[in-house]
């Protein structure tokens, strides 16, 4: 597409331009607009039908307008039925609430549309309902509010955000789709995904999450081919956000604030010291065929005196350090407008403290803008918005970099181990008194007091300006507008880390007859064990580094900056001709993004480091490194849309977008994405008046194409990496570097110049109807998506002699479909009680039609024509070996030769019995019958067909006078869950890992009495234990039906109680509105399927739990 195409588009635009004229004369009218309760409506639009002026109602609902003779007025306000006024005698105008908000205006890409005129599947988020929720990111507040919009994560660690997925686009991750997030468009600005450093950052997702709810005017979700207006990036759906602008009238200031407490929904229940000790013994003595000497019974088991003492030991470190935390959110918004100028500004602050140590997140947001009428037909606008966020995290790099380490290790540290003995930090050495894993060196208190930090700041700013010119002065071109806009967004990030080192100790000899305890046995004097000489440095005698090398500290800093801009030139046309409404739009859009990243780190820093690189004490050349990178991307697009509406009954829309991106080769850069949709508002037909029981009925259908640029940038052309080292050596002498080489690696060798956009053909059919006197509104959307030319790799079918991995090619095919059903019941009982019940439910599924099918483990792989979610596969448990005779019988009965890699001699009572389901895969791909070999590869069965396919969310609200209540309840069912494997085996070693409470040794299989060195029975024989012996967790923790639990979930997600102060109280104070509320989030999970209810289904075992939040909120406006 070159310049000449522009002309083509401009011509087609010209066709849409029609001629019209009108004339007018004057008559003044003063009116007052109120709602059904008699309260004034502020800001309602009063417009002369057919043109000639408009105004807005003031603080008291009053307005004045000069009406030309013979003309009528139209009064509209969001949420109310638009009224026509032709009787100018009655000044009082009572607006009726619009049961289904049909007059509502909905933001669709590059403009707005009346909700009534929508033909596609465009959902709007009830923005009012998220105002009371305090959350790190906006995304997590949306859960359950929009049908077809899934939200995951985002309610645990402060600063972590949720991810949104529209119509289960995230399912495609199963076939290697890297982009499953929707496209985010905020105030017309399309946020790109951009590579920063070595990772892709979805700037849209970040910007969306950083928005404060109070600044949001509305959020639309484009779920079907309506998204084609965003073309090549719209296949995962689009989220459109409009932020608040000033409203006509005197300046309005509003404040909203929340203050609240966050606490864990629950922590997993763990074994107490005594139970842990017994469990340890039962495991240590699990193998009846092993011979135990006195010495190893003494040292490898807890002795009776120790167990007795452990009954009173309870060093629950998680309980010690976990605190409920505070969260607060404040926002102030100011806005107003005169005829010529419209201005607004807002500032908000959010802060969430952490529950564990140095962990918190806070964020400032601001936005401000002004729209000015420079002359009658020439408008300009300028706005700026941004946020400044700061996140502090503990730096947990002892023994690895898992960010969940703090919570996990506090949770699983056995309760008999104190954190410190005699003022010394104690490594979590277990009965063997040796180091099994570096995690044993982790000390929460040492890190907490060390001054170590991991801070990150993000600073995002967007500036945008536009000029708009309308041709309303020129009769033939009336309705034509021309607009140029430019937006720039700059995202900057910085993160600093500092890790120091500390000494951790172990005790050479410990208390108790088996020397296992860190605390004295009551009545036994062993005070000599507290002498200095008994404490040895753990970690092989070196200090424990939090990220550095060899007992030293470490520093790093990274900075990034991403600069993006987007330029639009828009021509739009919007005009009514009698019963014909015509609208058109054409835009040229150009955008470019670039980012740079700088990273440096220093290993081995002095203990007195000031945090700067000059405080390092590098010893080797690799101890200081610096990296910087840059990336660029650009897009050019042409967008067009034509809408036609006849008599508010027949709706037609055609739109297209032509996109080009540097992600693809120049000749494959362009993609054309059209969409056609239509609607029929049946209830507008004159004959429909006979159908009394349906108040409103609309059917609509859409079909169109969207794209997905699911590829590695620059994959289309040959490129080479640069390696500084490990090249060849040439030259005489002994010290020539093995220096530079310019390499082709896995990724940059897989070139496909022919790659182009994934294509996603979307069809949607919808019915909206209201019955029972508009009290029940029903929306049904059924959709079908044909994903074609999906960029997928070949693996098996790619000849090895080609010498590299497959480049992604456009060849995958997948269909997905679903039905979404929303029911909204809205009614009043009496004058003062209003209530609403909304139910969202649906069903979706998909099938893969073309991809590279697995050739191994076919039976539990994605198969042609089947869904991507292959369910959960695991072993089929048919009991537990409770005696050697059981083992003998089982091996004989099924002719078993190998049981999970073990011969019969190695199998022990206390192991679960799995069935030998099938034999090895044969050359033709089928599987042989049971082969006497039980293994994970060939013997899995389907334990759950898929994750919960059924479910619904109910949003309830009710108002009584000044009181209101709202709640969200959700339920899902149809699949199974499993006890997480983390709870089924100690992470590294039982020596320093406590287990969940259901591992109570009294319920566990124990082959024979476990005695201590004195012959005392410490754990009784338990041949009927319900649980297998934990010692054999390699066998027992495999996914199997033994650990399968119900997947049904019912939970109360949120509840808000609010009270609105009567206006009679606050009016005298000059206040317009004062509202108080109490909100709770993540409240109750009604079903707990887990053994001993050891964890809550809302949380995940071993990592930072979901937080239950209670906030008190205040909204004031004046």
């Amino acid at each position, binding site marked *: *597409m070159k*310049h000449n195409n522009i002309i083509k588009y401009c011509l087609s635009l010209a066709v849409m331009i029609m001629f019209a004229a009108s004339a007018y004369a004057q008559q003044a009218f003063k009116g007052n607009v109120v709602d059904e309760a008699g309260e004034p409506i502020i800001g309602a639009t009063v417009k002369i039908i057919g043109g000639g002026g408009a105004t807005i109602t003031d603080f008291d609902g009053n307005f004045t307008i000069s009406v030309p003779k013979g003309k009528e007025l139209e009064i509209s306000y969001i949420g109310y039925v638009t009224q026509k006024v032709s009787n100018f005698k009655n000044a009082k105008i009572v607006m009726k609430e619009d049961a289904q908000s049909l007059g509502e205006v909905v933001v669709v890409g590059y403009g707005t549309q009346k909700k009534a005129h929508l033909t596609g599947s465009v959902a709007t988020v009830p923005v009012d309902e998220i105002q009371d929720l305090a959350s790190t990111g906006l995304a997590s507040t949306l859960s359950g509010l929009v049908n077809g919009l899934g939200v995951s994560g985002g309610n645990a660690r402060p600063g972590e955000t949720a991810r949104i997925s529209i119509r289960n686009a995230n399912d495609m991750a199963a076939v290697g789709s890297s982009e499953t997030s929707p496209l985010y468009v905020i105030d017309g600005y399309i946020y790109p995904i951009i590579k920063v450093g070595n990772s892709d950052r979805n700037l849209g997702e970040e910007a969306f999450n950083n928005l404060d709810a109070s600044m949001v005017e509305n959020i639309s979700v484009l779920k079907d081919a309506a998204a084609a207006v965003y073309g090549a990036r719209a296949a995962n759906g689009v989220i459109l956000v409009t932020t608040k602008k000033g409203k006509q009238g005197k300046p309005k200031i509003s404040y909203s604030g929340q203050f609240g407490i966050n606490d864990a929904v629950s922590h997993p229940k763990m074994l107490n010291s005594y139970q842990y000790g017994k469990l340890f013994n039962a495991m240590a003595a699990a193998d009846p065929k092993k011979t135990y000497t006195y010495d190893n019974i003494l040292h490898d088991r807890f002795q009776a005196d120790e167990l007795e003492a452990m009954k009173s030991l309870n060093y629950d470190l998680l309980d010690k350090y976990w605190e409920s935390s505070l969260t607060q959110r404040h926002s102030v918004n100011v806005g107003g407008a005169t005829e010529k100028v419209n201005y607004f500004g807002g500032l908000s602050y959010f802060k969430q403290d952490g529950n564990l140590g140095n962990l918190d997140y806070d964020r400032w947001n601001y936005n401000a803008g002004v729209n000015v009428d420079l002359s009658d037909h020439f408008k300009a606008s300028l706005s700026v918005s941004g946020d400044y966020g700061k996140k502090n995290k503990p730096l947990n790099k002892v023994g690895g970099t898992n960010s969940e380490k703090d919570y996990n290790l506090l949770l699983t540290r056995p309760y008999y181990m104190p954190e410190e003995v005699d003022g010394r930090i104690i490594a979590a050495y277990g009965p063997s008194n040796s180091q099994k894993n570096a995690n044993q060196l982790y000390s929460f208190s040492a890190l907490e007091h060390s001054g170590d930090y991991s801070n990150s700041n993000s600073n995002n700013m967007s500036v945008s300006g536009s000029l708009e010119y309308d041709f309303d002065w020129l009769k033939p071109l009336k309705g034509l507008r*021309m607009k140029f806009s430019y937006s720039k967004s700059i995202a900057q990030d910085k993160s600093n880390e500092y890790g120091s080192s500390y000494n951790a100790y172990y005790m050479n000899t410990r208390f108790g007859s088996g020397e296992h305890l860190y605390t004295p046995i009551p009545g036994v004097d062993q005070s000599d064990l507290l002498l200095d000489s008994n404490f040895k440095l753990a970690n092989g005698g070196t200090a424990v580094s939090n990220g550095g090398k060899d007992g030293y500290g470490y520093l790093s800093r990274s900075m990034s900056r991403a600069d993006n801009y987007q330029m639009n030139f828009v021509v739009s046309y919007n005009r009514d001709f009698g019963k014909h409404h015509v609208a058109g739009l054409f835009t040229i859009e150009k955008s470019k993004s670039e980012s740079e990243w700088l990273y440096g780190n220093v290993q081995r820093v002095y203990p007195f480091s000031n945090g700067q690189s000059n405080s390092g004490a590098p010893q080797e050349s690799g101890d200081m490194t610096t990296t910087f990178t840059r990336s660029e991307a650009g897009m050019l697009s042409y967008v067009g849309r034509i809408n036609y509406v006849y008599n508010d009954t027949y709706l037609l829309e055609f739109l297209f977008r032509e996109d080009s991106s*540097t992600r693809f080769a120049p000749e494959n850069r362009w993609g054309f994405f059209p969409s056609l949709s239509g609607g029929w508002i049946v209830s507008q037909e004159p004959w429909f008046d006979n159908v009394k029981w349906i108040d409103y009925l609309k059917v609509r259908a859409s079909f169109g194409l969207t794209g997905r640029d699911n590829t590695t940038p620059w994959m289309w052309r040959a490129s*080479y990496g640069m390696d500084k080292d490990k090249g060849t050596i040439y030259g*005489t002498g002994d010290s020539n570097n093995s220096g530079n*080489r310019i390499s082709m690696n896995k990724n940059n060798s897989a070139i496909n110049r022919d790659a182009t956009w994934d294509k996603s053909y979307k069809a949607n059919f919808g019915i909206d109807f209201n019955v029972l006197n508009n009290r029940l509104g029903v929306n049904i959307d059924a959709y079908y998506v044909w994903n074609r030319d999906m960029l997928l790799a070949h693996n098996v079918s*790619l000849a090895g*002699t*080609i010498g590299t991995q497959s480049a992604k090619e456009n060849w995958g095919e997948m269909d997905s479909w679903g039905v979404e059903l929303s029911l909204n019941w809205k009614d009043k009982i009496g004058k003062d009680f209003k209530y609403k019940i909304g139910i969202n439910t649906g069903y979706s599924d998909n099938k893969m039609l073309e991809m590279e099918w697995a050739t191994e483990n076919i039976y539990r792989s994605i198969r042609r024509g089947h869904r991507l979610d292959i369910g959960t596969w695991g072993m089929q448990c048919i009991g537990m070996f409770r005696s050697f005779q059981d083992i003998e019988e089982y091996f004989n009965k099924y002719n078993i030769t190998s049981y999970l890699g073990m011969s019969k001699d190695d199998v022990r009572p206390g192991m679960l019995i799995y069935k030998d389901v099938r034999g090895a895969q044969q050359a033709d791909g089928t599987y042989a019958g049971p082969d006497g070999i039980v293994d994970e590869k060939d013997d899995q069965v389907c334990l759950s067909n898929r994750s919960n396919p059924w479910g619904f969310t109910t949003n309830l609200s009710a108002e009584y006078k000044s009181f209101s209540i709202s709640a969200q309840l959700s339920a899902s069912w149809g699949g199974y869950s499993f006890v997480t494997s983390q709870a089924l085996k100690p992470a590294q070693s039982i020596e320093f890992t406590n287990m969940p409470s259901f591992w109570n040794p009294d319920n566990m299989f124990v082959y024979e009495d476990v005695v201590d060195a004195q012959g005392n029975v410490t754990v009784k024989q338990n041949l009927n234990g319900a649980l297998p012996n934990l010692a054999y967790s390699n066998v027992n923790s495999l996914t199997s039906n033994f650990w399968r639990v119900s997947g049904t979930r019912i939970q109360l997600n949120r509840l808000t109680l609010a009270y609105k102060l009567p206006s009679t109280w606050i009016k005298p104070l000059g206040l317009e509105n004062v509202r108080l509320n109490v909100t709770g989030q993540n409240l109750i999970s009604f079903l707990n399927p887990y053994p001993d209810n050891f964890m809550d289904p809302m949380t995940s075992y071993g990592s930072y739990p979901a937080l239950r939040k209670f906030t008190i909120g205040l909204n004031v406006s004046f």
Partner: protein
Amino acid sequence: MKKLQYIGCAFMFSMALVSCSEDFMDELQNYDAVDRNNAYNNYDGAKGRLSDAVVNCMPDVNANPSWKNTSTGSADDHSQSTEEYCGFSKFVDPQKEMTYMSGTNAVPDYFQNQANNIKESVWGRIRNLNDIIEGVQEGTLSEAEKNEILGQTYFFRAWCYYNLMKWYGGVPLVKEVQIPAAGIFTPRSTTKETMEFIIEDLEKSAELLAPFTTNGGWARAEDYGRVTSGTALALKGRVLLLWASPLFNRANDKTRWQTAYSEMKKDLEIINSCGYGLRNETAPGINASGWAEMFNADNNEEAVFVTLYNKIKDGGTPDYSRNNPWERGIRPSNTLGNGGKEPSATMVDLFPMSDGKRPAQYNSYTTVKASDIAYDPTKPFLNRDPRFYRTFAFSGVRWAFEGDPNTSATYNPYVGSNYELWSYVWYNTADDRDNVEQSGKTYGTDNLLDKARGMYIRKRSNDADVSKARYDYSIDAGFKYNACPFIELRYAEVLLNFAEAAAGAGEMSEAVAQLKRIRQRVGYTGDCGLDANLSSDQAACLAAVLYERQIELAYEGKRFDDMRRWMLFDGGTEKVDGAPASWNLTGWGGNTCTYLGFKPLNNQRRERIEFRVRDTYNKGLGGDKFEEKNGKIINPDPLADATKTYPNQYDGIRPAAVDLSKELEPQLTALTTFYDTYIERIDKTGDGRDSDKALLYIKYLPKYYFLGLGQGALSNNIGIQQTIGWGDYNNGGANGTFDPLAE
């Protein structure tokens, strides 16, 4: 206000026009990588690309032979299939048969490795080389620069294909960068086509590199080590010889020998013009010291194809280190080496006597005359070929190095400049001593303790008496940071290849002349022990060449290739399932072993030599470690004189160690006395025994001469033909259909 409107509108229109130009997209760059133009239009860029491709092709001393590396002389899968080392490799294991299936008995995969990773695949490195060829050809470098890069690239492509051909015969010939898309498939070419393609690349390489290298080698010292026209032609000789060898030439087609001979004769001049020759040919020194110096010499005319190393420490970022682990590997533990490499008794016993002839006990190569000098296995160091002393180290020999392995805590007895190897052993218990079936635990003298070896391999050692140290020695790392080169193709091999081709072509006197050159370099004179019949008896001449290769190239990773080439495991008599009649060996009387007088390796065993303290000294028993008691150091060695203080406990017992830089004769007498008095040779179990302790014997199956593709390689290349004799995974395990001998 109107004006403003006009300006505004004009601005909008102009921005509209500006914004709809697509040009800005073409200016955007991928900063993560270098694009093709920069890589190939720039001389340094192209060299960087070459370095990347070549580094994956270079022989490397670190590794067990694999898809990537050939054998470099360690006790690896290849060398353990020959006389050189004990221990059954998978090729000769009598208890397991290799199959195409993945698992414990899988055939080694020299064909594919990881299919989807360009850096970890046989075909990835070929792709890389093809990319350079295409990129440089299309690029804008000067003709000379292009030739310089391309000449080297063609060599390495040929090197990759040579390594495939020697195992598989014909393979797919991928000559360009293929689009990584489904449906692109390259079938196996015939062996002849493969061979011709290799030769073509090598000739191209030689021609392109001629202006740079045929005037005495690369002009700039920093290019030393790069391949030359001579390297290409030397490899060409190897390929032609392989093509003429019985493995591929079952009917003994004379024209192949003739071609090999005449081409190699012609090419030898060009090889010489690149500055290559026998190092120290005119200065053999004493006890083959000139020969020993050759392995670690810098700027070395012997090094026709060489991998260079440096002594830079590893672990930095960037990591410029590339160290040769050989010296560390062969040195005994009391030098802070890794413990040493132990030769088999067979290998020690088959080396020529000092007259250049095979010991009479070694009844192989019987077409060549045996020596009249009696060989005494209990003192293997008496009267041997000069190369024996530089190939093996034995108890009582000086083996100096630059460094001091002692800290206060060790009992390592010597500093490097005085280092003597004493490595006789004793037992801790009588049970161990009397257990013949299994190698009981032994303890060696001079702090070797349980790491002692009966004999050590000394070949290629950076001997401080011969050449300066090319390593940085330290207590922490020993010999680790070592810059000694590895020579994959030595000038001596060029001559031996030529000699063999000449012998095969019937030009026996030409062959003998080459053998003489080789032998004169190590100090032989006159007829160099090469009998007159070699010039007339073709079988004897070929046998002499193969024997000479085995000696000259011992522990350089070449022997297994020679054995396969000449089918020396069974003489080529055993049949492969499904093989056509064309596989029958019809030349050489139908049995190469009989023809050469060689005793087939199948059904033989290799044992380990041990020199142990005679029972007369504390029944051959001693301690298992040094101990300090009452301020006195107790030496566990039963020969140590407990009345004297450590380390002077051997005064009057041990003679001075043999110094190779002096005449051997007078020194060996004292050593002989020591051996006769104190220690005795025992051959202990080298190759394994079965679970009933019965002896096992080498079994190399005939199908191993041409390897089959493994399951992974097959499933990565659906549609490829499997080699005859091996099951085809893609075809339900049916016998393969590819015939490496078909033309």
